[in-house]
């Protein structure tokens, strides 16, 4: 059988995850962890080869389909965009996690789960069947439950993991109910065939609502977001970066794929997305405003950024124009880079200031005082990340927000204009908690923990520098990403029409 190249992008990580787990048992204790990490890293590096080939193929032909038995895969621009973010962030997180986890038990499980989750998420982006979508989604969720509750001895970590599991599982039950409805209405679960056959009816509205809420738990739509700050703050920092940078976006991608099958009341879906977008921005900002734990603050800011993506995509569906969705997806990439960087940089400080000293308390803002003098690179990259998230030019976040806003104004609809101004106001509001973070980092008087802090391992600094450079390059030259965003935007819009 002729297997298209993109299937390897999904298969390599999933298959090697078993290898990663087994390799961990070759060495005893920390050495096993290092072997696992090495295998995982190499596997992901190898995955880049088929990815580049697949991306090129999709660029030339638009989309590739593959049906193996009952599993149907469909790789289009959106899949490629999402795969790029997942693979990019994933590779860096594997590199980063080495020192962070040194001394922990069960590292081989961590790397195996992480690599498997990467493969599964790429698969999720390619799902072409409602039930497959659910399977990919559930598989990703299972990997992430285990990763969030990685610190099995810590009560807070267990609490966060359990809450995440129950809330997320409730969401996937809702998706299953929706699939039940679809089965009763239509003879197929294939997304494209469904779109062609399904008739607008009340049931379709109910199904859509179930999809929005079911996948919305993972996307952290307000008021379904309550698991997010706990999970993001308690997970190992590399996993926080993955959760915030790609996992919640995976929920968004799944929601869009599912809704695209019910394309008929497109107007309703777009308005729902816009409403949730506005709500997410405001609630996320206000919740982050008075937060004093760094990772929790960053977690809440993820709500806000999901809001921007929703608005971009919502506007696009509302008017049937691709540019806002391109902006929203561009923001997905940039948010992955910026929030990934922010979590990783905060994680470095958490590691040097707390974990290395066997202290498992949270990293609070005051701990960062004076970090710039001891850890100049970490401080600079953290500042760049949060300022980029706040939307200051010439950093990546500004450009994607700008693209969403321009596209919003091009609709020439007063309500959308008002929404964009609201989004811009929220962006300014977010500076009220990002900027103080930068101020604290650059204080002269170091905090007690900074004075005691240990050194930063080089393998943790490399991902920070790479991400920071990416943020600046995209900020200065935004069209460098248009090879990903513009096919993805048009693929998304095509799926809905």
């Amino acid at each position, binding site marked *: 059988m002729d297997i298209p190249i993109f299937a390897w992008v999904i298969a390599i990580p999933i298959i090697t995850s078993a290898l990663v787990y087994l390799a961990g048992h070759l060495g005893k204790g920390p050495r096993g962890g290092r072997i696992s990490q090495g295998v995982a890293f190499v596997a992901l590096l190898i995955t880049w080869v088929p990815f580049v080939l697949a991306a090129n193929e999709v660029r030339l032909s638009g989309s590739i389909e593959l049906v193996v038995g009952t599993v149907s895969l469909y790789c289009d621009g959106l899949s490629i965009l999402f795969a790029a973010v997942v693979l990019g962030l994933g590779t860096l997180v594997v590199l980063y996690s080495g020192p962070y986890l040194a001394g922990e038990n069960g590292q081989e499980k961590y790397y195996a789960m992480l690599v498997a989750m990467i493969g599964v998420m790429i698969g999720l982006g390619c799902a072409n069947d409602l039930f497959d979508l659910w399977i990919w989604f559930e598989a990703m969720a*299972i990997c992430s*439950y285990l990763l969030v509750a990685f610190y099995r001895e*810590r009560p807070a970590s*267990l*609490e966060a993991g359990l809450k995440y599991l129950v809330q997320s*599982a409730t969401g996937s*039950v809702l998706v*299953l109910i929706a699939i039940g409805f679809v089965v009763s209405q239509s003879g197929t679960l294939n997304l494209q065939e469904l779109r062609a056959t399904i008739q607008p009816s009340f049931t379709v509205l109910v199904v859509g609502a179930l999809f929005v809420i079911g996948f919305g738990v993972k996307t952290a739509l307000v008021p379904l977001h309550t698991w997010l700050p706990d999970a993001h703050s308690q997970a190992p920092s590399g996993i926080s970066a993955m959760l915030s940078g790609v996992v919640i976006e995976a929920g968004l991608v799944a929601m869009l794929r599912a809704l695209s099958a019910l394309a008929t009341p497109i107007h309703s879906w777009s308005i729902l997305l816009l409403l949730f977008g506005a709500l997410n921005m405001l609630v996320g900002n206000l919740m982050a405003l008075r937060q004093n734990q760094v990772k929790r603050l960053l977690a809440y800011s993820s709500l806000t950024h999901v809001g921007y993506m929703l608005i971009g995509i919502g506007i696009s569906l509302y008017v049937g124009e691709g540019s806002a969705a391109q902006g929203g997806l561009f923001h997905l990439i940039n948010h992955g880079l910026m929030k990934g960087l922010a979590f990783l940089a905060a994680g470095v400080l958490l590691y040097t200031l707390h974990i290395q000293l066997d202290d498992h308390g949270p990293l609070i803002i005051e701990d960062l005082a004076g970090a710039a003098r001891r850890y100049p690179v970490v401080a600079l990259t953290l500042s760049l990340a949060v300022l980029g998230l706040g939307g200051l030019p010439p950093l990546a976040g500004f450009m994607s927000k700008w693209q969403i806003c321009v596209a919003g104004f091009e609709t020439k609809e007063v309500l959308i204009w008002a929404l964009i101004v609201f989004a811009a106001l929220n962006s300014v509001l977010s500076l009220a908690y990002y900027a103080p973070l930068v101020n604290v980092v650059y204080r002269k008087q170091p905090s007690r923990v900074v004075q005691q802090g240990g050194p930063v391992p080089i393998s943790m600094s490399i991902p920070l520098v790479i991400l920071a450079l990416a943020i600046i390059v995209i900020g200065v030259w935004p069209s460098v990403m248009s090879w990903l965003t513009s096919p993805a935007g048009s693929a998304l819009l095509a799926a809905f029409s």
Partner: protein
Amino acid sequence: MNLSSSYVGLIGILGLLGVGFYGLLTTRNLIRIVIALQILVKATLLGLIVAGNTSNQINLVQSLAVTVIVADTVVAVIGIALAVQIRRRVGTLDVKELSTLRG
């Protein structure tokens, strides 16, 4: 199966969903919460079968149901494992006491 059996099925589904959601929202015991989740999944399984039955796709939904059972079991196992760990580390199974993360 005929129409009346799918009515019975429907009533069963609604009943199970009701029990499941009621359990999720009111129970304080972790194990019971996992059980409530299981009840919800069973309700949807029944739903899938009824839906497949009414639209003559029983083969399709049977394969779906088996897959769902597998995936769901994994989730239940992880849930129970977490509950066991929580009982060990925190010393309680009461979710009301598991609210150290807030604000």
